[in-house]
């Protein structure tokens, strides 16, 4: 049996996504900027996708900029905004549990004369709202918060954050990294007072190498990629038409019968956690997100358990897939106050609509069988 429980890392594309990607590669392969029919037809894919996405967010299609994925969206939101608004101030607020694609641009800005405040989180990984309110100053140009944390699935009170930000300083922009949240929740930027929103295609059964940044109309953002002036100059380079078409299709499908889909994922997660918690010496670090379970297995190194599960056809992540290539300790697990014996023993199981109850049962059975063996052989 195979159980792919690493949907927080990436997902399998919907079959219909694959079809439209192939179509856009083989049949309508024109350059959207070309003046002839081939170009017009290719452009139509981009327009359609833009409309589907805009509708899902209840925003205007012109507020969507396609990027190469979540990392580029976050880079553009942070660096592009900081550059365009430097005259208003050089203070930015973020949190202690962000993804590397937010941290590293922030470090870059810090080196270039910006001041960054990192807000603490509580033991559930939820940001301290009082600290936020205190941190906002007249020269705060941007607040950047992750909607759903990728390592434990903590969900931030985005609506309250938006209110606090705009009440304290209406000029401060609000960026949300929604890479793990879009497709799981209905996100309406206008209602939530969000000015910038980052999304990635391959987390929602779309292709890799495509994503978008929602930029509220009239928001000042400096483009990072300059060239032929595509996408109104906000992101030059010939549009990734197959990727964009695939992303549009994925968005359309993920928000179809959405409530039902999310109920299914939530049920899988709840079932998994309930069963896992029956095992001995485990700790549940999971947040509210419907698709992410973070479990610590005391006395077992996460890397070893990961490979042991791999041998059984079960694919999971240790901490977050994006940070586990480096031996560095997960920032999120540390930020929520996990002690050393736990954060070295934590696995992330992340689910999608393709997962089944059988896979959950099988996985828990494998864990029940493996844990005692692995605990017998530990580093002395």
């Amino acid at each position: 049996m195979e159980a792919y429980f690493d949907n927080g890392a990436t997902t399998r594309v919907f079959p219909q996504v694959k079809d439209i990607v192939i179509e856009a590669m083989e049949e309508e392969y024109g350059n959207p900027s070309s003046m002839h029919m081939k170009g017009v037809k290719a452009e139509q894919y981009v327009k359609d996708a833009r409309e589907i996405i805009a509708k899902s967010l209840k925003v205007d299609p012109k507020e969507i900029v396609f990027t190469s994925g979540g990392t580029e969206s976050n880079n553009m939101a942070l660096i592009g905004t900081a550059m365009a608004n430097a005259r208003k101030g050089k203070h930015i607020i973020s949190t202690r549990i962000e993804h590397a694609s937010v941290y590293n641009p922030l470090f870059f800005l810090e080196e270039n004369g910006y001041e960054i405040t990192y807000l603490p989180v509580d033991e559930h990984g939820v940001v301290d709202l009082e600290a936020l309110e205190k941190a906002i100053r007249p020269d705060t140009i941007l607040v950047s918060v992750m909607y759903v944390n990728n390592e434990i699935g903590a969900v931030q009170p985005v609506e309250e954050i938006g209110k606090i930000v705009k009440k304290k300083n209406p000029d401060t922009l609000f960026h949300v990294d929604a890479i793990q949240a879009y497709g799981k929740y209905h996100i309406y930027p206008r209602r939530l007072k969000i000015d910038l929103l980052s999304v990635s295609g391959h987390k929602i059964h779309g292709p890799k190498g495509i994503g978008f940044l929602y930029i509220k109309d009239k928001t000042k953002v400096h483009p990072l990629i300059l060239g032929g002036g595509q996408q109104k100059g906000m992101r030059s380079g010939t549009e990734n038409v197959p990727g964009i078409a695939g992303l549009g299709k994925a968005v359309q499908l993920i928000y179809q019968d959405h409530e039902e889909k999310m109920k299914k994922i939530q049920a899988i997660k709840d079932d998994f956690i309930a069963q896992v918690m029956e095992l001995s010496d485990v700790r549940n670090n999971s947040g509210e997100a419907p698709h992410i379970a973070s479990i610590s297995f005391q006395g077992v190194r996460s890397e070893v358990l990961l490979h042991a599960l791999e041998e059984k056809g079960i694919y999971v992540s240790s901490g977050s897939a994006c940070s586990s290539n480096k031996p560095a300790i997960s920032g999120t697990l540390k930020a929520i106050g996990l002690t050393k014996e736990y954060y070295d023993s934590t696995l992330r199981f992340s689910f999608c609509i393709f997962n089944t109850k059988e896979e959950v049962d099988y996985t828990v059975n494998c864990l029940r069988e493996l844990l005692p063996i692995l605990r017998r052989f530990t580093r002395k």
Partner: protein
Amino acid sequence: MEFKAFLIKYAEIGIKGKNRYMFEDALIRQMKFALKEVGDFAIRKQAGRVFVEAKGEFDFDEAVSALQRVFGITGICPTIIEENKDFDHLAEVCCKFIDEQYPDKNRTFKVYGRRADKKYPMNSMEFSAEMGSRILDAFHELKVDVHHPDILLTVEIRDRVYIYSDILKGPGGMPIGTNGKAMLCLSGGIDSPVAGYMIAKRGVRIDATYFHAPPYTSERAKQKVVDLAKKVSRYAGPINLHVVNFTDIQLAIYEKCPHDELTIIMRRYMMKIAEHFAREGGSLALITGESIGQVASQTIHNLAITNEVCGMPVFRPCIGMDKQEIVDIAEQIDTYETSIQPFEDCCTIFVAKHPVTKGNLKIIKRSEEALKDVIDDLMKQAIESVEIIRVSE
């Protein structure tokens, strides 16, 4: 003026007596292999030397770096070939050669003429003197120094005329395939690829054995070793990499033997398994990256204990080297970056905090007694688990 040929210099092959043709043939075979991707070249032996001549377009730097990976070559001379042997013409060519190759003329030089074509109207001495004076006439800043010239312009008059001055350093050593085969114990570390390279340099073909311990070591750790073998094979030629599953033996040792002896006992069984595959594949020796005192298992006491299980010679070319010296070679052969990727290997997963550093063979053997009921089966299973990957560039 474009270099279309290389004169290849080699040192030790020249003194191998009756076996010389065998060494030269091996050298030519390896050169052909190395130049395969660079372009179309004719390689031939002529009067105790090897010439490489391009039959078409090629990238000069690419060709040189390919030749610099062929063991046995000590020097590579980029050469001009002239069909026209007329002296006045040759003088013109030589002056142009000097002018282009040495923009700064404030140097000393010497012309070394060699007349192999006895029909040529001048002898070697006359040729050298006359050519020297022509060059002096052309470039007044140049000075002649017959003992230690900055530029030694060699002109060989044979069926055609070969002109060269520069000697680029080759890797030295002996051509691969002239000295049998040996089995390299390849971990993912810095030392073992260097050890393999150093033995291959002496003309030895290489096979390799790698021990992995899933689930304690990952697929990536194994891929890293495949990548390292590939880097070594750029010099050593194709390598049969034996990947052996060592998990069960390791766990048995962990459970039944004193923890501080785990690494030594483990290494003894690894040597036995590597020796098994060495014999099976026709290798006559083992190669390891060990260096005295580098880690607990490589103290002179523990090396002796590990060595004891092995019935064939164990070559340890890094034995007297400091870590930095090994790193320098690893960087030179481009294995360093791969070696330092942080994947756990099977030597580190259960390592004791304070392993035995002065092991005693009698005590180790007594500890191994605890394994006697299971070890034969486990060894057999490990040997049967082997996956052989043929690695080549």
